[in-house]
C-alpha cells in the first residue's frame, strides 16, 4: 500500500496545534516591520492533527527496509547492527541539551569524550591526531585534501594533481576536484589491484596525493601497499586513505603503518552510528605529524586533566563546518568503542572478513567472481554470467528485495561489469548468510527458467520497479518550462 503525501492528507480547516501564548506586552510584527519585510502568503505547509501525523510517518516507516529487520548487504556501506544503547547515550540530556557556545568549564564531559574518542581513533588507524569535525566521509576526504594542499603550499610546492584509482568511490575524484585539484585516474590491473606500472607513469612532482582505499572497493587487499607508499612518498606526494573499508582490519593492521598520511573514517560505517536513511554520519580525519599544523580549528586539547578548545592554530585550514562536528554521532561511536574494547574491535574485523569469505564461497558457483579470493570484508561478484538470459545485476537486486533482503551495491565499482558488491558485516549470523546464499541460488535458477519473473521484480513491495527514465524526462520537461509538474516536489493545486 502506498501512503498519500502529508500535503494530500492536509485539510485547510484542520486546527493548529496548541502552543504557548506570548503572554507579554509587545507589539505585533505588523507594527514593527515594513510591509515589504513581511511575508505576503503563508507557506503552504500541511495541516494535520497529531494522530494523523503520527500514523502518516508510521506507515511510511513500514515501507522501508532497514538493518533492524532486513539483512542489508550493501557493499562499501558496512551496514552493521546499530547498538540500541548508543541511542540512549546520545540522547542523555547532559549531551543533547548542551549549547555549543557554553563556556568550556561547563562542557568538560563533552570535551573529554571528544578527546578520548580522538585518542581511540588514533590507536585504531595509527595516526598522530584526528579532527572530529567533518560531517561525513566525503567531507572528510575534502578536509584531508585541503590539509594536504596547505601542507604543500606551506613548503612552496604548488602541486595540482591528485591520483585516484579507477575503482575508487565517486566521492574521491569529486572531493579532489572541489579542493581545486586536477584528477588523474590510475588503472587497476587484472588482479583487481592498482597497477603499479600505471601508477608509476602517473606519478610526477605535480602530484599532491594518491587517494586509496585498502582493501580496495573490490574487497581486495592492496598487497603492494608498502611499495606504493614508497613510490608516492618518493615523489613528495602524500598518501590518502579512504576509510570506508576500515571495517576490514581493525586490530589486524593500520593505515598509518601502511604509510598513509591522512585517513578519514566513516563513524556511520565502522563505528555503528546509524545511517539514518542517508545521514547524519561523521567523517573524522586522522593525520600524521606533518599534517597536524593544518588541522581544522578548533582542536580539543588536554592539559592537567582540563580540556579546552584550541582556536589559535595559525596554519590551520580553518573551519570545515560550524561548531565541533556531529557531536551526537561522536557520542554513539565512543559508546561503541568502549563497549567493544580493543579485543572486540579486532574480533569484529576478523568476523567481517570471515563472513565475507564464507558468503563468497556459498555463491561462487552461482555468480561470476571476477577476481580471486580470499577477499577481505566484502566481495564483488558479477551477474555477467546471466547476460545470455538477458538478466542483469539490477534484476538480481530487485529479486532479492522480493525475498526479504536488501540488495547489494550494484554497478559499483565501475571496473566490474554488472557488479554485485556484497558486504555482510560481522553482525549477521551464519543462518542469515545461508538464507541469502539460498536466495541467490534460487534467483540464478529463475534466471534460467523464467527470466521475465526477474524483470518483473519486485512484486512484494509497496511499489513495483519505478520507471526512472520516464521520471528523468518529466524533470527535463519541467526544467525546460514544458511542464507544470515540478516532479521534485509536491505542488499545491492552482487556487
Amino acid at each position, binding site marked *: 500500500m502506498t501512503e498519500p503525501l502529508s500535503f494530500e492528507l492536509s485539510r485547510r480547516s484542520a486546527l493548529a496545534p496548541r502552543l504557548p501564548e506570548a503572554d507579554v506586552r509587545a507589539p505585533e510584527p505588523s507594527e514593527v516591520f515594513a510591509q515589504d519585510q513581511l511575508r505576503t502568503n503563508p*507557506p503552504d505547509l500541511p495541516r494535520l492533527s497529531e494522530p494523523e501525523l503520527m500514523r502518516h510517518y508510521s506507515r511510511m516507516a513500514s515501507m*522501508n527496509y532497514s538493518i533492524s529487520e532486513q539483512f542489508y548487504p550493501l557493499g562499501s556501506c558496512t551496514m552493521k547492527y*546499530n547498538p540500541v544503547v548508543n541511542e540512549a547515550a546520545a540522547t542523555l540530556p547532559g549531551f543533547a541539551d548542551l549549547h555549543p557556545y557554553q563556556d568550556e568549564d561547563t562542557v568538560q564531559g563533552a570535551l573529554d569524550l571528544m578527546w578520548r574518542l580522538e585518542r581511540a581513533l588514533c590507536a585504531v588507524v595509527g595516526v598522530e591526531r584526528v579532527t572530529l569535525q567533518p560531517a561525513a566521509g566525503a567531507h572528510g576526504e575534502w578536509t584531508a585534501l585541503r590539509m594536504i594542499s596547505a601542507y604543500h603550499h606551506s613548503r612552496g610546492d604548488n602541486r595540482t594533481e591528485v591520483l585516484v584509482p579507477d575503482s575508487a568511490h565517486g566521492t574521491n575524484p569529486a572531493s579532489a576536484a572541489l579542493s581545486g585539484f586536477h584528477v588523474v585516474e590510475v588503472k587497476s590491473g587484472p588482479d583487481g589491484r592498482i597497477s603499479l606500472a600505471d601508477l608509476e607513469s602517473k606519478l610526477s612532482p605535480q602530484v599532491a596525493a594518491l587517494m586509496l582505499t585498502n582493501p580496495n572497493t573490490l574487497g581486495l587487499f592492496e598487497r603492494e601497499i608498502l611499495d606504493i607508499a614508497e613510490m608516492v612518498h618518493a615523489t613528495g606526494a602524500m598518501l590518502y586513505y579512504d576509510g570506508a573499508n576500515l571495517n576490514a582490519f581493525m586490530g589486524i593492521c593500520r593505515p598509518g603503518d601502511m604509510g598513509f598520511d591522512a585517513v578519514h573514517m566513516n563513524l556511520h560505517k565502522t563505528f555503528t552510528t546509524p545511517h539514518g536513511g542517508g545521514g547524519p554520519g561523521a567523517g573524522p580525519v586522522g593525520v600524521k605529524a606533518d599534517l597536524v599544523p593544518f588541522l581544522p580549528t578548533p582542536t580539543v586539547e588536554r592539559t592537567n586533566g582540563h580540556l579546552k578548545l584550541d582556536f589559535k592554530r595559525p596554519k590551520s585550514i580553518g573551519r570545515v563546518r560550524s561548531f565541533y562536528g556531529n557531536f551526537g554521532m561522536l557520542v554513539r561511536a565512543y*559508546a561503541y568503542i568502549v563497549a567493544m574494547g580493543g579485543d572486540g574491535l579486532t574480533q569484529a574485523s576478523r568476523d567481517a572478513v570471515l563472513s565475507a*569469505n564464507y558468503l563468497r564461497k556459498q555463491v561462487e558457483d552461482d555468480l561470476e567472481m571476477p577476481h580471486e579470493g580470499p577477499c577481505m570484508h566484502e566481495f564483488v561478484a558479477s551477474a555477467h554470467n546471466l547476460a545470455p538470459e538477458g538478466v542483469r545485476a539490477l534484476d538480481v537486486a530487485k529479486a532479492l528485495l522480493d525475498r526479504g533482503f536488501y540488495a547489494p551495491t550494484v554497478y559499483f565499482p565501475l571496473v566490474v561489469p554488472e557488479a554485485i558488491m556484497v558486504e555482510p558485516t560481522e553482525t549477521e549470523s551464519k543462518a542469515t548468510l545461508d538464507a541469502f546464499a539460498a536466495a541467490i541460488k534460487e534467483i540464478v535458477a529463475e534466471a534460467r527458467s523464467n527470466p521475465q519473473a526477474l524483470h518483473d521484480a519486485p512484486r512484494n513491495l509497496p511499489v513495483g520497479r519505478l520507471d526512472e527514465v520516464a521520471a528523468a524526462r518529466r524533470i527535463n520537461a519541467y526544467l525546460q518550462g514544458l511542464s507544470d509538474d515540478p516532479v521534485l516536489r509536491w505542488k499545491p493545486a492552482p487556487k
Partner: protein
Amino acid sequence: MPYLVHSDEDRAAMLEAIGVQSMDDLLTDIPGSLRLEALELPAGLSEHETMSQITSLAARNRVFPDRLTFRGGGVYRRFIPAAVAAVTSKPEFYTAYTPYQPEASQGTLQAIFEFQTLIAELTALDVANASLYDGATAVAEAAMMAHIHTGRNEIVVAGYLHPEYVEVLRAFSDGRGIKVRKGTEPGPKTAAVIFQQPDFLGLLVDARTLTESAHAAGALAIACVDPISLAILAPPGQYGADIAVGEGQQLGLSPSYGGPHVGFISCRKELVRRLPGRLIGTAYDKQGRRGFNLALAAREQHIRREKATSNICTNHSLCALAASVYMTYMGPDGLRQVAEVGFKRAHALAERLSALPGWEPAFPDRQFLNEFPMRVANGPAVVRKLARKGILGPLDVHRWFRELKGVLTFTCTEVNDPRALDELVAALS
C-alpha cells in the same frame, strides 16, 4: 563481545566451509610486517559499565534549563514536539541507508520528498534538495553553485553573516581560487552576494535592496535564512533571491553541542541542475503507482565523479526527517505562532533591558525578530554572573567582531516563559 554474533563453533564451521585452516589463511594478502599484535585500547566493557562511564561524562557537563537559556548565535532551545523523536527513533528510518533501492525505501524517499516541498514552500522557491550537513556548508555550497553558474570568482558577504559560516565559506573557496570579500557592493567579478536574514546579531537587513544590487551586477543573490522567521518575514522567493540556504536546527533538533543539525538549500528552477547533493522526485511503476526515487543523479559524484556539482554522498537525512515532522506538526499557523511568541517576548525583553541602567540597544535603529544585540560596559562579567545564577545568558559577540565590544545578543523563544524573563531581568538588576 557485545555486538558480535558468531560463536567459536560457527567460526570453525565457516572456516571449514571456506576450506581454510584458520583466520590467518584469509589474511595472507596483508604483509606480515603490517600485522598488529593488538590494539592499544582497553578491553571492552559490559553495557552497564559502558553506560555508567558515558553517564558520568554527561554528568560533567552543565545543562541549563531551556527556559533560562537566552543564548542563540545559530543554535536555539525551542519546544520540540515529542512526535519528532517518536518518528526519528523508528529503526525503519534510522537504520536504513541512503535509499539506493527505491522500492524498498519508499518511507525515507517520501519523507524527504516532503522535506523538499516543505523547504521550497517556506523559502518560496522552486526546488529544495534533500539536505546538507549544516547551515555553514549550505552557504558554501550555494556560493559554489553561483561560482559555476556565473563563471565568476568572487563572493561578496554583506553584513553580519554568522562568523563560522564565513570561515567555512573561506575554506571551500580557498581550494577553488575564489575570493571572499566583505561588503555590500558587488562588482563585475562577483558571482554572488550572500546575506543573512535576520543577521548573526538578529537584525534585519534590507534583503530586497541587496538582492537587486546583486542582480544589477549580474550576480546571484543568496539569502541565508532562519526557517522559523519565514512564518513572519518575507521569504527569499518574495524578494527575488536566487538561492536560499539555512540551518534547520530550530526545526525540531536538539542543540547537541552543535550537531548533528541540518542544512537546507533551495533555488529557482534555472539553477536546479547546479544543486549539490541528493534530490528526490516522483516516479511511477508499471501499474501506474506513484513512488519516489533519487532524481537528477547525473549531477552527483557517483555518476559524474570529478565533474559532480558537489562531493556530498551521505547527507543529513534523519535530521531532515526530524525537520519535516516538526514543520508538519506545526503547520502554517503553528509555525507562525512559534515565530510570534519569540518575537513578542524578545521585544518585551529588549524594552525591559533597555530600561536597566547601563544597558542600551546596540543598534537602536535596526529591527529584529527574536534575537537582538544590547550593549553594556562589562559584557563578559555579566555573562559569568548569570551563569552563577543558573542562567545561560546572552552571547558575547565581541569574540568574533572587534567593533562589537560589550555587545551581547539575547534570544527568546517559546520556551522562555514570562517568568523566565522576570528572572533574567532580576538577575541583571
